[in-house]
């Protein structure tokens, strides 16, 4: 087991290193750099940046140096914990990410728990009540939610909430709580109300695959010999269900739960932008548009590391739940 974990971690580190190179290169691919975007944006608002100012800005940001030097400087600083400076926000990248992280984690955690709980529960229900009205209804809702683009769904819901429930769901807090620093019950409830929208949008899209996988795997299991035997022997339906078949069916879901770790941090970018939620997703999006390379690069590195760590955790979790994997390794 230990051997298994060590190997996984080693692969993880190698993948991570390659990822930093790839992400840095990709961010540099669009023509121009932060400065061209910045100057173009200033022109848009009526300020002319003459060549002299452009030159001094370029020097200031260190954009006059070749790409690989920029990359090495960035990597060197990162190993010291300094993720570089964001050009657009004039703040250290670590500060920017830290500003948004707590809220992002909380929002994602709430949405995800909701998603998984609902998905698995409905999946089990669908499998045990195959072809019933309930089964069909849930499937239709799930697929509709998946098919409708998130941003469209979010906008429509936002409008419906405003028009018929007189509730402005934009942003994370209502006006009166925006400047209130301390958390209170009122503020928390207000936040949950705003999050309801995000949960519905993300939930309907995300549950579709959970339901179908759960349903499919469980149906496979429920058709097997041992289940029929257990029933014949008089085991209660509920105990039977959760003792073995669900544990097997949940296998694919658990193995992919690790990927969700990075999702927890990136926070569903499109839905966040549309609903105005201050998560890391929109930050990454605007950083990419602006070619704010250190911010974009660092966020991507963080997301990649979390994905890798998450997958490692998944693997370990799987090995723990599913003894077959443990034995498979022992045989090597």
């Amino acid at each position, binding site marked *: 087991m230990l051997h298994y974990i060590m190997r996984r971690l080693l692969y993880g580190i190698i993948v991570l290193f390659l990822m930093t190179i790839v992400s840095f290169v990709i961010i540099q691919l669009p023509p*121009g750099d932060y400065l061209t975007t910045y100057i173009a944006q200033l022109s848009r608002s009526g*300020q002319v940046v003459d060549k002299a*100012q452009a030159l001094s800005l370029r020097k200031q940001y260190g954009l006059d140096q070749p790409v690989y030097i920029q990359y090495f400087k960035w990597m060197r600083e990162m190993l010291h914990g300094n993720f570089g400076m964001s050009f657009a926000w*004039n703040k250290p990248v670590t500060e920017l990410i830290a500003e948004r992280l707590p809220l992002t984690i909380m929002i994602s955690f709430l949405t995800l728990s909701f998603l998984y709980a609902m998905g698995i529960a409905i999946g089990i229900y669908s499998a045990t009540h195959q072809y019933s009205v309930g089964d069909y209804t849930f499937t239709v809702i799930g697929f509709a939610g998946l098919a409708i683009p998130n941003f469209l769904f979010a906008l429509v819901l936002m409008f419906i909430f*405003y028009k018929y429930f007189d509730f402005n769901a*934009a*942003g994370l807090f209502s006006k009166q709580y*925006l400047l209130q620093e301390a958390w209170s019950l009122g503020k928390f409830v207000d936040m949950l109300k705003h999050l309801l929208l995000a949960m519905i949008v993300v939930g309907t899209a995300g549950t579709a695959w959970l339901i179908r996988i759960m349903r499919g795997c469980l149906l496979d299991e429920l058709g097997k010999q041992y289940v029929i035997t257990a029933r014949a022997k008089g085991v209660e339906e509920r105990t039977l269900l959760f003792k073995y078949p669900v544990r097997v069916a949940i296998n694919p879901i658990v193995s992919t739960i690790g990927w969700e770790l990075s999702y927890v941090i990136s926070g569903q970018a499109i839905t966040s932008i549309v609903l*105005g939620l201050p998560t890391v997703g929109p930050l990454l999006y605007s950083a990419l548009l602006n070619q704010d390379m250190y911010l974009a690069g660092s966020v991507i590195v963080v997301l990649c590391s979390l994905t890798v760590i998450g997958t490692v955790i998944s693997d370990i979790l799987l090995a723990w739940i599913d003894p077959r994997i443990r034995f498979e390794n022992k045989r090597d």
Partner: protein
Amino acid sequence: MIRKLMVILVSGMMCFAGVTSALAEYHVYSTLAEYEKATGKTIEKFSEAPMLKTKVAAGLLPPVEERLPEEFCVIEPEEEIGQYGGVLFQDIPSTPEVAAGDPGHLIRLDPKNNLIFWAAKGWEISKDYRDITIYLRKGLRWSDGAPFTADDIVFWYEDIMLNKDLTPVLLYDWRATGEPLEVKKIDDYTVRIHSGVSYYGIKFVIGKDALAITHYAPKHYLKKWHIKYNPEANELAKEEGFEYWWQAFQFRNKPLRMGGGGTQANPEMPTLGPFKLIERTSVRMVLERNPYFWAVDTAGNQLPYIDRTFDSFESGEIALMKVISGDTDYAITEVTELPLLLENVEQGDYRVNIILGGELAWPSLTFNLTIEDPVWRKIFRDIRFRRAMSLAVDREEINQATYVGLAKPSQVTCRDINSLYQERWARAYAEYDPQRANMLLDEIGLKWDKDHKWRLRPDGKPLTILLETMEWNMPYCELLPAQWEKIGVKLLLKTLEWGLYVERAQSNQGHLFAWTIHADNTDKFFPGGLAIPDGNDTPWGLLWTQWYDSGGEKGEEPPDWAKEFFEFREKWAKSKNEEEYLRWGTKLYDWFAEYLPVIGSLGYTPLVCVAKNDLRNVWKFNIGYFSVELQKPQWFFKK
């Protein structure tokens, strides 16, 4: 039906706005003496905001009489004396780059483009235009209480502008005569800018670029990071995670800005403006009143009235949602949102004002005159071609479709309030005359094809022009293909993203570019509307500019008619007195109207401002969205 209703409503509002702007006055008196002279009244007692009173009582701040400078400014509120308190939730144009604040410039312009002395008290310009002496307010203080003196201006010029690490190349206006200007301290509250030769432009140096820079810097705060004052500045920078002292310095030297770059402002840096930045994250920006702000209203109340302003960086639908539900106190949006805004006036409890924006041409159309392809080159450079294309633009149609008929069809030229302005420039080839356009194109020899649908180039290929621009200009260009089809020119539209657009604009390969030409709020000084030949917005003469800048080494020599532009421009920049300024300026704008390197369409485009009904003293007649910051000291919430 709705549309008709809207047009009536809007025209009604415009008339009302027009009438009120004729009647409305904006009074800022640079000193108490001026106020007394103009009105015969005086101000003896002062009062301050309750939140500051408590601090004074607790001994954290000196009393208001000591905080105000000896020579404070007097502002007469537009509607009435205001009440203290409140938080302003605002949404001023959506990109974070524009969210900003007033740093407290030395001078500014009022809505009628008259000069106002803001942080400075007054100035004197010598008759030979060699010196400009700026008088500062005695007792003026930074937002942290430290005194503001001439040292701060000298520090800005000598230690920042002239320092090669911080500013590799000095701003053009400060060296237009060939030698950099000198900035001398006469005494604590007097500064003189001196030029070796007569330089009419000396008037403009602290007015222009006001959106981008303040012409001073807090020496007491910044000197710690400057190598001249702190020999250990490089070590200090390294401690803070930078490589060189000037990086740490620039990181800190970020004042509030009325234009782009507002999201970079440094909350720790003191300011002279009415509000100081106290919090800036990537999610929101909070400004709080500056306890040392140096202006009062006519009853002696220290301004501003509002305690705090709050900006959360939202865009698009969210921002609109907040406006119509009444969660935003002040917002600026575009004409396209007008129907939705007018529908929700009752529910959101706000009022909508339409004001004239500062655009001189939206969109502007620029043909690349130094394009490499020889066939295109010949066509674009033919003056008849450009005139024909200008005559073929149905400006009124675009006006109705995108601006509800509120903008003004006009050629690209300076603002009408500018001293140089001449009506004939705005009208040059700006009428809609497709027949004449057709005649001109026939004259050039661009024949029609067999089906008489499209014209052909001299080499037989179809005359297909590619227009490249950025996404927000597209709605205004969409009508052009149909309009130009009538004269047989096929126009293709292409949207590019930032980086790619800049690359194309600089590559000398593009045919036609569309952009927006702005006039900014310092327009009285800098007429604007002068399309730069190698800028990203209007690249009409890239190679010519290269030739000119490199002294003939690179690029391509411009033809004689184009050489005139560079000649006039240089002479204009170096004007020694008003007569020369007017003469060369007129020649320059004449040249533009004659040769049309850039074709304009619509100017004075409308902006929509939304203000909650309890927010008072909001102007109905500002020009451009940058002037919002200038009104804020008098805004208040009426309880």
